């Protein structure tokens, strides 16, 4: 299998994730879509690592996983905090940024 295929797949997954973030309003689903994008990046990293024949790309992938785990923890913490304060779980309702 050519490595190109993996890379095209990774950019496709990235685009799908980005689309999800733009379309969905539930913060949980938005986090899920972020995961999609991060994993797409990981796939590209591992594919490049295979292409170059260097394991360091996989280290990057592992670090990305760690960062993703951190992001999940903080994101879910935020969701729980929003829920506790009886605020709506819908990003369109949180409009304090309106100028």
């Amino acid at each position, binding site marked *: 299998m050519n490595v190109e295929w993996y890379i095209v797949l990774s950019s496709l997954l990235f685009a799908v994730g980005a689309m999800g973030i733009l*379309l969905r309003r539930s913060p949980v689903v938005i986090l899920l879509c972020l995961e999609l994008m991060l994993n797409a990046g990981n796939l590209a990293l591992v594919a490049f690592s295979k292409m170059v024949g260097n394991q360091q790309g996989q280290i990057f992938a592992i670090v990305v996983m760690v960062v993703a785990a951190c992001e999940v923890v903080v994101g879910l913490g935020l969701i729980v905090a929003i829920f506790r304060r009886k605020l709506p779980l819908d*990003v369109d309702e949180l409009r304090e940024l309106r100028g």
Partner: protein
Amino acid sequence: MSATSWAWLVLLFPLLGSIAIALGFKALPAKAAGAIGTAAIGLAFLCGVGALIHLLGEAPDARHHASSLWDYASVAGLDIKLGIFVDPLSVFMVLIVTGVSTLIHLYSFGYMQSDEGYHRFFSYLNFFVFSMLLLVLAGNFVLLIVGWAFVGFASYALISFWYRRQTATKAGMKAFVINVVGDIGLVLAAFLIFRELGTFEYSEVFAKAPQVFHTNEWTVTAICLLLLVGAFAKSAQLPFHTWLPDAMEGPTPVSSLIHAATMVTAGVYLIARTHSLFVLAPTAADIAAFVGLATLLVAASIALVMTDLKRAIAYSTMSQIGYMVVGVSIGAYSAGMFHLMTHAFFKALLFMAAGSIIAAMANEQNIDKMSGFGKAMRFTSVTMLCGGLALAAFPGTSGFFSKDEILAYASARGGMYLIFTVLGYFGALLTAIYTFRLIFRVLPGKPCPEAQELIDTGHVHHAHPFNPATGEEEDTAVGFPGAEHHIAESSLPMRIAMGVLAFGALFAGLVQVPGVDDMVTKFLDPVFADSPLAAIHPSVAASWFGLAIGAAISLAGIGIAYFLYVARPETPAALQKRFSALHTCLYNKWYFDEAIDFLVVRPALAIGRFANRTFERLVVDGLVTGTEDVFGGGGRLVQLVQSGFVRSYALLLIVGFAGLALYFLLSSS
């Protein structure tokens, strides 16, 4: 284990000690904190000995090892490793630093016992030792700067240790600012080195330098002068010396460790470490030597009239470092380092003895009020006498051999360097006089009331401590030691520390006696083998001739002090009246503080005031209100886009990203 593994352990223990004490300050009892701190430094010392044994087992030419654990900063063309460099010079410094630090930790274990900030103190102290070791062991200029700055911070933290004492916090800031000036010099020097040689690693820099630079080329001279700025600021040489006497506001063990034995000698170490560069820039080396000589004389003359016990010893420290700077600058490298070692012993000892006496005086530091402690505190006075004899270069003591070796080298080099010999001996005369001025004022005679109280009751004089500079009452709640301060007589750890140092002060000179043995020179020679100056050796006969002159001068100085302060105690006052202008000048420390104030601080303030009043009102305010209008209008326009929907912001982000990607794709094809 290899030498570098030992060296890494040397670094590890103080760091662990510092962190453990700092994190465990609630859980650890005070004694445990002190014990951990002392043990950490003691272990570091043992590891230093391990490295020494390892080095001695190798051929002299092979005694240098570089080792790196990780990349510290590795970016395009710049490869800095977290690396150390182990060679006789760094091991020598490691042994001095850890050895003296162990003893001073031991001393502090007793001395600081009644202090509220006991944990803080030991944590800082261990951190200082770690930083100093990092400075000494660093394998490249970047890590050197890291250690250099850490040491500056540790010094600041410890000078301002009693942070409710206003004079102490001010002194800390002064020390920090002057040290940062030095740091800037060092950083600029490192930049220049990188620009010219493309590397920061010691071994590569020193190997490449002779091929790249011509002798006295302006770049190498500039590098050396910038290095000297760093060295002078850290080592309190003219004109960066004013912070050192003020640094005596800190606790006495700090004065002893940082501001006498170890940190202030970092500049000497730096010059010795970079001697390969100074060989290429003889002009810079001569400047360094002359500054050292000037500091030596100026500081010694000020020490003659200081009435504050600790400050007088501080000026003597500056003066002795002047000798070392002269030594390593004119090429007497191992002699300079040898003096650094003996000085660490006797100066630390003198400070400890002074601390003990100051404690007995309830924190009074004025020697005019002290007398008769010879009877009241036997152990302290004997050790103080040992330290004083070594400082005054009494024949046979450690200071006698080390100081004369520098001067003998200067005369062997000949030419204009004879100036250093002559004026160096003059400085030695002043040294002997001021040292024994202190000793004769403090130890013999009729006991002062505090000493009498100690003799009668066996208790230390209790008084509520007042700050002599401002007259305000000390706040004992945040750690000023308060009334139940310990004196050396009563605490075993302190006695052990002072005893060991007294032994070192008296006999450490015997490792290097001209014509008999030369352990220090033999050990350090491989480091300095590349310098042509290291080949100059004074003959044994010349050395002994110098030693004879030194002995005569030392005895003469002690005799003059005896005549002035014991036999005819009224003469100093008469002299003071006769030469009142000179005395005022000396007493005001040659007006260095005032000169710096006039030349640097005032103009800076004036510029600041001008900027504040005129420039800011006209230019800045105008600009600010103008921009405010522009952006306010723009903001109202942008407001229309701010819908508050996070997802439309995300969309904009992605539109921007897609546009950017499009731009790059188009521009690259």
